[in-house]
C-alpha cells in the first residue's frame, strides 16, 4: 500500500450525492405523517391577546391546531430551550419555550401550530389563524438596545444580558496607552448575517407508540447534542431517543442549535403517536434559524515609535437577539482570545456587553466570534501601518509572535497557549504568490494615469482557535459540555473495516478522510473501509461538528483507535507466530518476524482469528474492535495570510474582487483536495460579508430581506478563481499534527477584502468602510472624503 494520507483522494460521498441517491430529511417519507405549519408572530414585540383558530381548523386536511397557551397546558416540556453557555453567573436568560404563549419577542416567534396531512394544507391553514396582538415597544437594533429606552423583555428591566471581561493585566494596559507614541482606534460594525445553508432546516419525528421509542431525523450538525437536549427539555427518557442526521445540506453553524420547531415535532409526535414533520422555507429561515455576527466593536492599539504593539484594548456590544439559544452568549467570548491576532501584544484587555433585541436570535455562524476578532485586529493593523507610515506587510512583520520565526507552545497575552506558528514565511509565500510588488506598481501606474478605477490590495494574517476543545478549557469558560470526540475502529471477520465516527459531517467529507487515516494506519485499501456516522444508535458517543474540530479531535480519535487495534493485533500475531513482540514489525498491513520474512500474518487474517477466538493469548477478549475518546490537551491554532485584490470604480462605487490569494497553514493535511475546498468556501463566505450580505431590519423589527431575492448570497459571477497555497506547521495538540480548515477562509477574508477597498480609496482620504461595502457606501465615502 502506498501512502494515502496527504493525497487528494476522490470523495466516497460523491456518487450518491451526484446521482440524487443521497437522502436529506425532506426526502424521507413515512406513512401517516403530519406536517406542521407554523403560525409565526408578525410583530417583533407584542402581547398575544387572543388567537382564533376556528377557520384554520375547518381547512381541508387539518388534523389539529394548537395555540401557544394550549400547548403550554399540555405539559409537553419540562424545561425551556437550552442555553449551555451562561458566560457569567449573573447572566440574564429569560425562559424560551418552543411556542410563545403570552408575549412574542421577535418576528417569527411561533405563536400557534397547525398539523395537517400535507405541506400545502399545513401552510394554507396556518395562514387562516388570526392572532390579536397588543403591540409593545420594539428594540429593533443593537443601538436601540444599548440606548435602553425600550426593553426587549419588559420583565427584565434592562436589555443588558451580561458583562464579560478578560482583563489579565488592566494596569499594564493603562500604562501602555499612557506612554504610547502611536495609538489607533477602530470602530467596526459586524452586521447580522443569514447563514443560508442551501438545504433549509427540517425535522421528522417518528414515534413508536407501543415501544415508546422516538426516531428523529434532523437536518443538524449535532445529532448527539440534540439527543441529550431533547431528553433534558421534554422529559422523554434519553435512552428512548434516537437522532439521525441523514445527508445534511450544509450547516455553517446554523444547524448546531436546539430549535423550537424540532421540539414541537418531537413532543407532538410523542404525544399523538404519529409522525410529525416540518421543512423550513427559505423566506421563513430568516425568522426560524439563528443569524450570525451582530456586534459593534471598538478596538484600540497602543504602539511605540516603530509601530511595535504595546497594548490592545477591545470593547464589544453584542446583539443576542430575542433569546439565548444554545451558545448565543458564548460567541463573542470565543472570539475574545483572538483580538491579539498573530502579534506579540504585551498587554491586552477585552470587555463585552451582551444585549437583547427584538430580533431573530444570533448564534454561531462560520467562525463564530473569530472572524469578528480577526477583522477588528487586522483592520486596526492597517490603521496602525498608516499611522506609523509603513506598509501593511511591514507593520505585521514587526509585530509577529516570535518575530515571525517558528515557535511551539507559546503563551499569548490573551492567556491562550498557541500550539505552533511560523508566520514570517507564510506572509512571504502569500506576497510572492500575489506578486505583491507588481500589484503595488500597477496601483501606482493607475493613479499616475488618473484612472477612475482604483486598484486596492488588502492583506490579512489571521489565526484561529479550532479543534474545540480541551474539556477543562471549556469548563473554565463555563461551557456546559466537554470537547472530546469518540472514534471506533472495528475489523470485521472478512478483513474489512468499519469505522464509527462521533463527529458528524455535512459536506466535509469525513467518510473519505477517515478512510484515508485508517487505510494509512492499517496498511489497507481505503475502499475496504466504511465510515458510519450521524445516527446515535450506530454512533452512540459523539460531540459532533462545529468549531473546525472534526479532524483535530474526531479524526485523531480514529487514528488512535487504529493504534490500539494494531497493538492488540500485534499481540495476537506474536502469539500465533510464536515470536517475541519486540521481534515483530508491522508494515503494509502485515506483521512479520524480523529476520524470517516468511513468518507473517496479514491484519485481515488476524481479524478472522480474533473473530473465531480459537487461538488468542490467554485472557484476551475476542475481536478487533477498539474505541478511543480523545480529549485534546490544547486547541489548535491554524493561521494564514490572505491577499485580496479589488478594483473600485470611483464613479459608481462598485467594487470587483479581481483576485484572491490565500496561503493557509492548517498543519498536516489528510486530503489536500478537501482542505482546498473548505478554504474556497470559507473565503467566499467572508467575501460575502465584506461586500454583499446583511440582514436588514426596519424600525418595527421586520427583516426586510429574508429571501434570496434581496439577501445577496453571491452567485458564481461575482467571484474570481481563488489561488491557494499552503505552508505546513504541524500542531503540537494531537499526534497527527493536524489543525483545522473549516472556518479559516471566513476568518481571513472579510478583513483582507475591506483592507483592499480601503487601500484603493486611500487617495480619497477614506480610512474605513462599513460592511457590506456596497456601491452606495463606497460612493458616499469617496464623496465625503472619509468614513472613519
Amino acid at each position, binding site marked *: 500500500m502506498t501512502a494515502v494520507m496527504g493525497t487528494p483522494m476522490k470523495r466516497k460521498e460523491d456518487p450518491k450525492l451526484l*446521482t440524487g441517491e443521497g437522502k436529506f430529511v425532506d426526502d424521507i417519507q413515512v406513512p401517516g405523517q403530519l406536517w406542521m405549519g407554523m403560525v409565526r408572530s408578525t410583530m417583533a414585540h407584542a402581547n398575544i391577546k387572543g388567537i382564533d383558530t376556528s377557520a384554520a381548523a375547518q381547512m381541508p386536511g387539518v388534523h389539529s391546531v394548537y395555540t401557544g397557551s394550549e400547548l403550554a397546558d399540555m405539559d409537553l416540556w419540562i424545561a425551556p430551550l437550552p442555553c449551555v453557555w451562561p458566560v457569567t453567573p449573573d447572566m440574564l436568560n429569560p425562559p424560551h419555550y418552543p411556542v410563545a404563549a403570552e408575549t412574542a419577542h421577535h418576528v417569527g416567534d411561533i405563536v400557534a401550530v397547525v398539523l395537517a396531512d400535507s405541506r400545502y394544507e399545513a401552510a394554507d391553514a396556518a395562514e387562516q389563524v388570526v392572532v390579536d396582538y397588543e403591540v409593545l415597544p420594539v428594540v429593533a437594533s443593537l443601538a436601540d438596545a444599548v440606548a435602553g429606552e425600550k426593553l426587549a423583555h419588559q420583565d427584565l428591566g434592562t436589555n443588558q444580558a451580561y458583562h464579560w471581561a478578560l482583563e489579565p493585566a488592566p494596569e499594564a494596559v493603562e500604562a501602555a496607552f499612557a506612554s504610547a507614541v502611536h495609538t489607533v482606534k477602530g470602530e467596526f460594525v459586524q452586521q447580522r448575517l443569514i447563514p443560508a445553508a442551501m438545504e433549509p432546516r427540517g425535522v421528522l419525528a417518528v414515534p413508536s407508540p407501543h415501544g415508546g421509542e422516538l426516531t428523529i431525523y434532523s437536518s443538524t450538525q449535532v445529532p448527539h447534542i440534540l439527543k441529550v437536549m431533547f431528553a433534558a427539555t421534554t422529559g422523554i427518557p434519553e435512552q428512548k431517543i434516537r437522532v439521525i442526521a441523514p445527508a445534511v445540506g450544509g450547516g455553517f453553524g446554523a444547524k448546531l442549535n436546539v430549535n423550537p420547531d424540532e421540539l414541537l415535532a418531537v413532543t407532538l409526535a410523542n404525544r399523538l403517536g404519529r409522525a410529525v414533520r416540518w421543512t423550513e422555507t427559505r423566506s421563513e429561515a430568516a425568522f426560524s434559524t439563528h443569524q450570525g455576527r451582530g456586534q459593534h466593536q471598538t478596538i484600540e492599539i497602543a504602539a511605540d515609535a516603530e509601530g511595535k504593539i504595546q497594548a490592545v484594548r477591545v470593547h464589544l456590544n453584542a446583539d443576542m437577539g430575542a433569546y439565548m439559544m444554545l451558545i448565543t452568549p458564548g460567541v463573542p467570548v470565543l472570539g475574545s482570545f483572538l483580538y491579539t491576532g498573530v502579534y506579540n501584544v504585551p498587554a491586552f484587555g477585552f470587555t463585552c456587553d451582551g444585549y437583547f433585541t427584538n430580533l431573530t436570535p444570533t448564534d454561531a455562524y462560520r467562525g463564530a466570534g473569530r472572524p469578528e476578532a480577526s477583522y477588528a485586529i487586522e483592520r486596526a493593523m492597517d490603521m496602525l501601518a498608516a499611522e506609523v507610515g509603513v506598509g501593511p506587510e511591514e507593520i505585521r512583520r514587526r509585530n509577529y509572535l516570535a518575530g515571525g520565526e517558528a515557535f511551539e507552545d507559546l503563551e499569548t497575552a490573551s492567556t491562550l497557549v498557541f500550539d505552533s506558528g511560523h508566520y514570517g514565511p507564510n506572509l512571504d509565500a502569500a506576497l510572492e504568490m500575489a506578486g505583491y510588488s507588481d500589484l503595488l506598481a500597477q496601483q501606482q501606474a493607475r493613479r499616475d494615469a488618473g484612472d477612475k478605477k482604483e486598484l486596492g490590495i488588502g492583506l490579512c494574517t489571521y489565526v484561529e482557535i479550532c479543534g474545540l476543545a480541551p474539556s477543562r478549557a471549556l469548563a473554565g469558560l463555563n461551557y456546559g459540555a466537554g470537547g472530546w470526540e469518540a472514534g471506533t475502529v472495528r475489523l470485521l471477520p472478512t478483513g474489512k473495516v468499519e469505522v464509527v465516527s462521533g463527529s458528524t459531517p455535512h459536506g466535509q467529507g469525513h467518510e473519505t478522510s477517515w478512510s484515508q487515516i485508517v487505510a494509512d494506519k492499517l496498511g489497507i485499501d481505503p475502499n475496504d473501509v466504511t465510515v458510519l456516522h450521524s445516527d446515535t444508535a450506530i454512533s452512540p458517543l459523539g460531540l459532533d461538528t462545529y468549531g473546525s474540530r472534526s479532524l483535530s479531535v474526531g479524526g485523531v480519535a480514529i487514528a488512535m483507535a487504529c493504534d490500539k487495534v494494531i497493538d492488540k493485533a500485534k499481540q495476537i500475531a506474536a502469539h500465533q507466530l510464536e515470536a517475541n513482540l519486540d521481534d515483530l514489525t508491522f508494515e503494509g498491513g502485515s506483521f512479520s518476524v524480523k529476520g524470517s520474512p516468511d513468518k507473517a500474518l496479514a491484519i485481515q487474517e488476524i481479524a478472522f482469528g480474533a473473530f473465531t477466538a480459537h487461538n488468542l493469548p490467554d485472557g484476551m477478549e475476542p475481536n478487533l474492535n477498539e474505541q478511543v475518546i480523545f480529549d485534546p490537551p490544547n486547541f489548535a491554532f491554524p493561521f494564514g495570510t490572505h491577499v485580496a485584490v479589488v478594483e473600485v470604480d470611483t464613479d459608481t462605487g462598485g467594487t470587483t474582487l479581481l483576485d484572491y490569494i490565500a496561503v493557509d497553514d492548517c498543519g498536516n493535511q489528510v486530503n489536500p483536495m478537501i482542505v482546498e475546498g473548505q478554504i474556497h468556501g470559507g473565503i467566499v463566505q467572508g467575501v460575502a460579508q465584506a461586500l454583499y450580505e446583511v440582514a436588514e431590519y426596519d424600525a418595527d423589527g421586520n427583516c426586510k430581506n429574508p429571501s434570496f431575492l434581496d439577501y445577496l448570497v453571491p452567485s458564481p459571477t461575482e*467571484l474570481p478563481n481563488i489561488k491557494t497555497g499552503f505552508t505546513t506547521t504541524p500542531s503540537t495538540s494531537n499526534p497527527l499534527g493536524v489543525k483545522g480548515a473549516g472556518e479559516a477562509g471566513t476568518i481571513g477574508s472579510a478583513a483582507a477584502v475591506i483592507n483592499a477597498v480601503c487601500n484603493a480609496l486611500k487617495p480619497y482620504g477614506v480610512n474605513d468602510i462599513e460592511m457590506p461595502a456596497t456601491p452606495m457606501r463606497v460612493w458616499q465615502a469617496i464623496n465625503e472624503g472619509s468614513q472613519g
Partner: protein
Amino acid sequence: MTVNGEVRSADVEPRTLLVHHLRDVLGLTGTNVGCDTSSCGACTIHIDGESVKSCTMLAVQARGANITTIEGMATNGELHPMQAAFMECHGLQCGYCTPGMVMAATSLLKENPNPSETEVRIGLEGNLCRCTGYHNIVKSVLTAAGGAA
C-alpha cells in the same frame, strides 16, 4: 409526462409545483428545493432537453413533457461525464446544490460546448452554492467540456 424515459401519469392538484410532484409523488427526491423565489437553482431539471427550474412550473404545465432529472443522468451504473467531472474536481461538498448544478451545467455545455471560465460563471448565475465558493464547480464544468481547468 415522460420522466427519465418512463411514462408516468397521475392526477395532480392544479396548484402542485412540478418540483413537489417529482419529489413527493414520483419519489424522485434528487431534485432539491433551496428557496421559494426561483433564485437558487437547486431544483433544476431538463424539460425537452432544456434546463428549467422545476419550482417555477406547475406539474400540470409539464403535461406531455419529456423530463430528465438527476436520477436519469447516470446510465448503466456509469456517471454522466458531468457528474464524473464534479467528482474529479471536487465540485461538491454537501451536495445539496449539486443535482441542480449538474443539470444546469449539462445544458450550458449543450448550448456552448467550449465555454470560457467567464461564460461558465455567467451560465450558472442562477444556481447558488454555499459550500464550494464555485471555484471547483467552474473547474468541473470546464473539465467536462474537455478544456484544461
